[in-house]
């Protein structure tokens, strides 16, 4: 293929976008709407995923230390725990602090218990966080085997339930995103297919005056690429604008520890990249596939 032919195909592909006026508009707007949907969905799902991760990271193992342990042994235990693989954070809380926490947590009613401050029936405790929350139960089993450990608690049931909820929403979300991606691809290529179907006579004529398949194909491929890219512009702009806005105004209002939005900066660029890639690839792929059956003249 000569260089000038490449230039010609590029020019022709670009011209076609203009020539097909209404059809271009219909295709681009189908791409726009589909990618907008996919983009919004991705943003929401990735954030929910993030909530889940934050939730998981709140999981702590409580290690109650035998009352017979000396201060030295207590310190040594702490160091042993810190060395266990998978442990990422360690916090110490004496039995006095523990009692204070308990009384506080019982509210007004707790005041009745304050007389036990002299005769504290509680234990000193270590609070352990793991690098990967899924390792919690394994680390807990290990902790149980240590000397001077009287009891290990980590809300087994609650953690399992939490993980289940997180897993379910994550899987459902993944399935939806995957389904939506396929739908987006299908719809975009379907739309392009129909617009090309409407031009099948033209393809026939081109073949009849001696054009090779690739000569006909290239401008269509470039047109498809452009349709996809043009269609990705609006969704990216809207999502950029909308997410920045949401991040700036909504997140200060949420005072929760785990419901936090992902920071705007690298996140949005990734989304933009995904959208433009999907638009461009599906656009090209869609037109290539669609003209195939009309090239047999």
């Amino acid at each position, binding site marked *: 293929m000569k260089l000038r*032919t490449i230039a010609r195909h590029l020019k022709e592909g670009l011209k076609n976008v203009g020539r097909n006026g209404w059809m271009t508009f219909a295709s681009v707007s189908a791409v726009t709407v589909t990618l907008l949907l996919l983009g919004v969905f991705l943003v929401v799902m990735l954030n929910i995923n993030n909530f889940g991760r934050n939730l998981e990271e709140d999981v702590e193992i409580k290690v109650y230390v035998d009352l017979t342990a000396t201060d030295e042994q207590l310190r040594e235990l702490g160091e042993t725990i810190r060395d266990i693989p998978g442990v990422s954070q360690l916090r110490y809380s004496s039995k006095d602090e523990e009692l204070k926490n308990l009384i506080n947590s019982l509210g007004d009613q707790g005041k009745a218990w304050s007389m036990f401050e002299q005769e504290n029936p509680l234990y000193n405790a270590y609070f352990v966080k793991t690098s990967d929350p899924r390792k919690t139960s394994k680390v807990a089993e290990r902790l149980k085997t240590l000397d001077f450990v009287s009891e290990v608690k980590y809300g087994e049931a609650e953690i399992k339930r939490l993980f289940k909820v997180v897993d379910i929403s994550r899987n459902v979300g993944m399935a939806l995103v995957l389904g939506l991606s396929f739908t987006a691809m299908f719809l975009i290529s379907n739309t392009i297919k129909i617009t090309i179907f409407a031009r099948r006579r*033209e393809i026939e*004529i*081109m073949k*009849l005056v*001696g054009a090779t398949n690739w*000569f006909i194909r290239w401008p269509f491929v470039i047109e498809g690429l452009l349709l996809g890219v043009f269609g990705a512009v609006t969704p990216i702009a809207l999502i950029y604008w909308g997410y920045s806005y949401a991040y700036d105004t909504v997140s200060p209002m949420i005072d929760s520890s785990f419901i936090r939005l992902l920071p705007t900066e690298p996140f949005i660029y990734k989304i933009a990249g995904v959208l433009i890639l999907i638009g461009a690839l599906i656009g090209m792929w869609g037109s290539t596939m669609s003209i195939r059956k009309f090239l047999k003249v």
Partner: protein
Amino acid sequence: MIEMQDVYKQYKNGVHAINGINVTIKSGEFVYVVGPSGAGKSTFIKMMYREEKPTSGAILINGINLTTLKERKVPYLRRSLGVVFQDFKLLPRLTVYENVAYALEVIEESPKNIKRRVLEVLDLVKLKHRARSLPGQLSGGEQQRISIARSIVNSPKVLIADEPTGNLDPDTTWDIMEIFKEINNRGTTIVMATHNREIVNTIRQRVIAIEGGKIVRDEMRGDYGYEA
């Protein structure tokens, strides 16, 4: 040289359009194909540039066997031909200029040559002033002349024309016939299906008469026949 051996053509809906045709057209010949409506003239012609494949028999054009020609090679066959289609087959979204240029673009001609040649042939069919119109903005006869311009722009070795003057007034028809004669004189083989008795009877050439898909007459300097 065009050669057909025992060619039959049955369309998918069961119609037998061509029923055993044997014919040889030598390089540089000028041949009229005549016959009543639905006789099989267009089918006969369509098989030459392989819009239609014969059901059986062999077709050879300049040594290329069309019945065994690979799909991939078909475009190269068509580039050596010029075709005027009965229904014009112009690209509706391209301007007149672009339509004619297309036949040169496919052979990767240089832009300078394309421009020169296209304006040359548009001038020849007297439609230079319509270069920037779309086919839908032309009269029937103007569209037909664009189709003619496109068929000769690549100086083909064989010109195949299916009723190229059906939408033209007699004066314009003669102008077009002048062009064809000149091209023929320069060595181009011409096969032309026509209903125009006046032309056939005036510019005497070989006449192949088809009826019911068969050649019923083949005369070297024939007339139209079928007196009304």
